[in-house]
C-alpha cells in the first residue's frame, strides 16, 4: 500500500482533563479497506473515534484525512469533509421519527440525492422503512443500531466510522449488520473503520486490524493473521476479557 492513506493518525495523545486516554496512537486506513480496532473495555477505542471527529481534540499528534490536517478542525466541519460516524451507544434522536433522524444524517449531503439515498438505506435495512414514522426512542436496540448506521450513510461518507455496532444485540441481528457492512464495502467501495469488542466477527470481516491496550496500539496485522495469534485468542476470543 504505497498510495497515501485516506486516514492517517500519527502519535495522537488525547486527555480528559488530566486523565490521558490515548498515548501516542498511530494507524492508517486506506481507501476501500475495512479496518478494525479491537481492545478491552476502557482501552481508548471510542476516544480515538471521537478524536478523529474532533471531539475531544487531540492534545498532540496529527490526524490527516485525504491529506488535510484535521487535528484542529471543528467537528461539524470534519463531518462536511466526508467522514460519518455511528457512535458508541447509537445516540438516536429519541423524540424524532426515523425519517427525521435520517434527514439529520443527510444534513451534510447534496439534497438532490436525498430520495435516492433514502431508498438505498431502506434497501439495506428494510425494517426501517416499515418504522419510518415511528419515534426513534421506541425502536428496539437492533433497529436503533440499523438507524444509526443508516443515518451515518445518509451523509454520503467516504469514510464510515462504526463504534461497537454489535454491542448488546442478538446474534442474528449482528449477522445482518455485519452483512450490511460487507456489502457496502464490496459494492460501493466504502471505506470502513470499525471498533469492536466482538473481536471474532470483526477480525473475520476486516482486511486489517489493530489491537489497543491502555491507549496504545500493541499489535497490527491482517484479520486472518490476528485471528491466528495465540495472545489474541487468549485475550479477546476464548473467554478472555470479552
Amino acid at each position: 500500500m504505497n498510495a497515501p492513506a485516506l486516514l492517517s493518525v500519527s502519535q495522537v495523545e488525547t486527555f480528559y482533563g488530566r486523565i490521558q486516554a490515548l498515548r501516542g496512537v498511530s494507524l492508517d486506513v486506506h481507501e476501500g479497506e475495512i479496518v478494525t480496532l479491537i481492545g478491552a473495555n476502557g482501552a481508548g477505542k471510542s476516544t480515538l473515534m471521537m478524536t478523529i471527529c474532533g471531539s475531544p481534540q487531540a492534545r498532540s499528534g496529527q490526524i490527516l484525512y485525504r491529506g488535510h490536517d484535521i487535528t484542529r478542525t471543528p467537528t461539524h466541519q470534519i463531518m462536511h469533509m466526508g467522514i460519518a460516524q455511528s457512535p458508541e451507544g447509537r445516540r438516536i434522536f429519541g423524540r424524532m421519527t426515523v425519517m427525521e433522524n435520517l434527514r439529520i444524517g443527510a444534513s451534510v449531503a447534496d439534497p438532490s440525492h436525498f430520495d435516492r439515498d433514502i431508498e438505498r438505506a431502506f434497501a439495506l435495512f428494510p425494517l426501517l422503512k416499515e418504522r419510518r414514522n415511528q419515534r426513534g426512542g421506541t425502536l428496539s436496540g437492533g433497529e436503533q443500531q440499523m438507524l444509526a448506521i443508516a443515518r451515518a450513510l445518509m451523509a454520503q461518507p467516504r469514510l464510515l466510522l462504526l463504534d461497537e455496532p454489535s454491542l448488546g444485540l442478538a446474534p442474528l441481528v449482528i449477522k445482518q449488520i455485519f452483512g450490511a457492512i460487507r456489502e457496502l464495502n464490496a459494492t460501493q467501495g466504502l471505506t470502513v473503520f470499525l471498533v469492536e469488542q466482538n473481536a471474532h466477527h470483526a477480525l473475520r470481516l476486516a482486511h486489517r486490524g489493530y489491537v489497543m491496550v491502555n491507549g496504545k496500539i500493541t499489535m497490527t496485522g491482517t484479520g486472518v493473521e490476528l485471528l491466528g495469534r495465540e495472545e489474541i485468542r487468549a485475550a479477546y476470543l476464548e473467554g478472555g476479557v470479552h
Partner: protein
Amino acid sequence: MEYFVQQLINGVTLGSIYGLIAIGYTLVYGIVGMINFAHGDIFMVGAFVSLIVITALGLTASTGLGLTILALILVLVISMIVASVYGWTVERVAYRPLRGSFRLAPLITAIGMSIVLQNYVQISQGARVKPLQPIISGGHTIMRRVDANGEFLVQVSNMQIFIVVITFSLMVIFTLLIAKTPLGRAQRACEQDTKMAALSGINVDRTISLTFVLGAALAAVAGLMFLLYYGVIDFFIGFVAGVKAFTAAVLGGIGSLPGAMLGGLVIGLIETFWSAYFSIEYKDVAAFAMLALVLIFLPQGLLGKPEVEKV
C-alpha cells in the same frame, strides 16, 4: 356572565403576550439548559425600540386604520431586528465563553446582563415612565345587556384583535419553523443531543445563536404588543413580565414549545381574573404564587417532555 366574557377576552390578549416571551425562555433552556434571565430585558428593549419608531413615524389615533397597521408592521420588523442583535450579542458576550464551566456561572452572568440592560435603558431613555397615546382606536360590541343597574357591554377593541391576530400568527409560523424546516430540525437535534448534532455536521454554536435570535425577535413582538396594550412602559417592565413569562414556561413544561404558549395563556387568564374578582393590587402576587405552586406540585409542567423510552 358578560363581565366574565369581557375578562376572558382581556385574559387571552394578555396571555398571548406572555406566551410569546415564554417561548424564548423555553427554547434557550431546551438547548443550553440555562434560564436566560436577561430575556425579560430584551423584551423591554423591544418595547422601547417600538416606542421610538412609532414616535419617529408620527403615528397617532387619527392616522387611518390601514396605514396604522402597515406602519405597525414596519415597527414590528425594526424592533425584531434590533432585539435580535441584542439577543445575539448577549449570548456571544456573556454566555458562550462560559459554556462548559460550572452550572452557576451562566446564571450569574445572566443576572448581570439583565442589570446591564436595565441600567443602559434607564440612562439612555430616562427612568420615568413613557406614555404612548392609543393609536388603534375603535372596537366592536359583541354582547350587550341592559338591566336595573344600567347598561353593560362586552367589547373587543381593534387593538386587542390586532394583538391576538399577530401573536397567534407568529406562534403558528414559529411552530411550523421548528417542526418542518431544516433549521428547526437542527434546533431540535441540538436540544436532544448536542454531541450527536455536531457529529451530524450541524454547527452547534450557530444553532444556539439562532435560538437566541429567534427568542429575542419574539420577545420584541411581545414588547410592541405590551406597549400598545398598556400604553406606558419603563425600564423595569422586563423584570415583572419576565418573571410571569418564566412562570408560564415552567407551568407549560420548560423546554416545551406548545407548553410555553399554553402556559402564557393560563398565566394571562389567572392574572386577569384575579384582578377582576379579587384584587388588582395583588395581581403580580397571583403570578408569583403560581410559580411557587407549580414548582412544588407540578415541576415537570403541563406539557413536560415525554421521557425518551430506553430499550
